């Protein structure tokens, strides 16, 4: 079957699986899911009747068979009925997510893509400088060594630690950037120029965190891919035919080395999401990561489950885009 059709089917099926996991998890625990949730809430103090009702509505006091509950759950999911949040009662879960999601998409989307692009370019440079065995190029180089060692360290440090470090140095000690939030606490979001500038300012440290944490991995990956491609026959042949060094490096080596990097990008999206979540928590940045953190802390199950679905959906969509992009880049993947 056509590869695009296949990818769409996988997309839908995976989404369905995520929704199903969401449905079954609370029900795998002993007792009804509502009991479990109520018990946890009761540990923090008496539960109001409104909260009890909200919980039962969401998690379902079992009436009807599991199958009928499942079907109605699917129905709710498809129509975006995810219930009401405990923490921000009576705000609906959907409205909360709708507010938080754009912040995350802009921050994470921008920073991640930038990390990939810059990291990949530097990886090409590092491999080229290493000497890659190309006739006439110099062997070994400081650029390669520095880039490789540097990347290994920055990419091995977890996102949240880089976040903490940046927060400590640049916000707390040097006071160059704000310590928390997405915007100044006493303002509310609007489209005015001053607000946008303020928001941008608040997003610098989180963005740099994501950038620094991700860049090293792409650099190393691309460098290694380049080293492999530079040893390939088609590179040798291109040199033998007198193609200019830069043409060979870019159109022959890098262009092919890019393919596994793009694949890796798709696979790493899950990790990037995890890291960004924690980054948001450290900076109290008003995205879905911070929202999820609050949901966990307050045991706000409806919010938590909905966030899980939304995050998974975002990753799936991003994966789909990357897959399609790969199809454009690699003619061998276009087989109908």
């Amino acid at each position: 079957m056509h590869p695009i059709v296949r990818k769409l089917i996988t997309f839908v099926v995976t989404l369905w699986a995520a929704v199903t996991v969401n449905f079954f998890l609370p029900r795998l625990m002993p007792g009804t899911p509502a009991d479990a949730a109520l018990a946890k809430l009761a540990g923090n103090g008496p539960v109001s009747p409104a909260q009890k009702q909200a919980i039962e509505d969401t998690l379902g006091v079992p009436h009807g068979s599991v199958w009928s509950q499942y079907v109605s759950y699917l129905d709710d999911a498809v129509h975006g009925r995810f219930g009401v949040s405990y923490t921000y009662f009576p705000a609906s879960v959907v409205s909360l997510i709708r507010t938080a999601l754009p912040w995350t998409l802009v921050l994470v989307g921008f920073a991640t893509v930038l990390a990939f692009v810059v990291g990949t370019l530097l990886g090409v440079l590092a491999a080229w400088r290493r000497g890659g065995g190309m006739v006439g190029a110099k062997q070994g180089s400081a650029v390669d060594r520095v880039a490789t060692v540097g990347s290994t360290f920055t990419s091995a440090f977890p996102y949240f630690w880089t976040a903490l470090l940046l927060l400590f140095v640049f916000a707390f000690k040097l006071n160059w950037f704000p310590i928390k939030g997405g915007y100044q606490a006493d303002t509310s979001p609007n489209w005015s120029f001053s607000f946008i500038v303020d928001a941008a300012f608040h997003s610098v440290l989180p963005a740099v965190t994501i950038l620094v944490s991700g860049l090293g991995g792409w650099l190393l990956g691309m460098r290694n891919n380049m080293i492999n491609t530079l040893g390939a026959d088609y590179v040798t042949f291109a040199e033998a035919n007198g193609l200019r060094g830069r043409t060979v490096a870019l159109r022959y080596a890098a262009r092919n080395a890019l393919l596994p990097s793009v694949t890796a990008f798709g696979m790493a999206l899950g990790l990037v999401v995890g890291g960004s979540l924690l980054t948001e928590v450290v900076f109290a940045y008003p995205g879905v990561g911070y929202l999820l953190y609050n949901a966990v802390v307050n045991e706000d199950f409806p919010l938590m489950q909905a966030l899980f679905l939304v995050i998974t959906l975002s990753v799936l969509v991003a994966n789909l885009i990357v897959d399609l992009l790969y199809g454009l880049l690699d003619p061998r993947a276009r087989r109908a």
Partner: protein
Amino acid sequence: MNAPADPLATPIAPVVARVRGSRLPRPLHLFLRAANTVLANRMARIGAGILLVMVLVAIFAPLVAPYSPTDTGFGRSLGPSAAHWLGTTGSGQDALARLLFGARVSLLVAFAAGVLATAIAIAVGLFAGYLHGVAEETINFVVNLFLVIPALPLMIVIATYLPGRGVGVIVLVVVLTGWAWGARVLRAQTATLRTRDFVAAAEFSGERPHRIVFREILPNMVSLVAASFLGAATAAVLGEAGLEFIGLGSPDTVSWGTMLFWAQNDSALLTGQWAQILAPGLAIALLAASLSLINFGVDALSNPRLREGVAP
């Protein structure tokens, strides 16, 4: 930093040389030679060194730590001082002692989760690569499912609903989300090896599938398994830290992630108790980094082009 290191001059080279002519069992022989190749890489040496220090700290913590980690007799939220190098926590415990003892939990989780996740990855990956048809497709789908669904949100959701809190829950959750990567890599390699002649020969001579998988195919994938283990262990360290930071670990555990949780809880950011945030954070980062660095050397095992001192 300029001349490539002589590949034979690793710290364990003398051991390897002595073992070479001796009659020790072959797997040990191969392991030492593989370790030698890995350690020839400068970064792997650095990583192994860091890891060794941490293991020693974990083992000898009672001897090195100034106080017991759970002793709450000290003043609360004190800043760093001569008596308490990293200050004390909100409950009056010595932070340095907690840091040193915390190594035990982090290393335990890394090792246990790494081993478990890799064991599952081997089982699933090898059989999925070896089988054909519906069985293979189904396994593939499940593996891809676990790969695509983002790990941290999934861990959070599962951990929230599991009864109880603690290291066991964390290991379980980390393994559940961490086995798929290795499984995919091993499956791909098995599928490639499966078409090779030596496997066909084994099949013709009547060997049973599970024997073929473990005695013919697996030995050819040692470096991938090693890389898989290191990757799983790294993910476990970071996953544990993340979960505990958010509060999904047991508050009583003495571990680096829990230290961060309490520091955050006790508003260490605002009171300036930065040592209690930076120290455990750095420890986690170094542990994860050391595993990644060693993995860098393992890459050289499977791809000779990346070995030091060998031209591309």
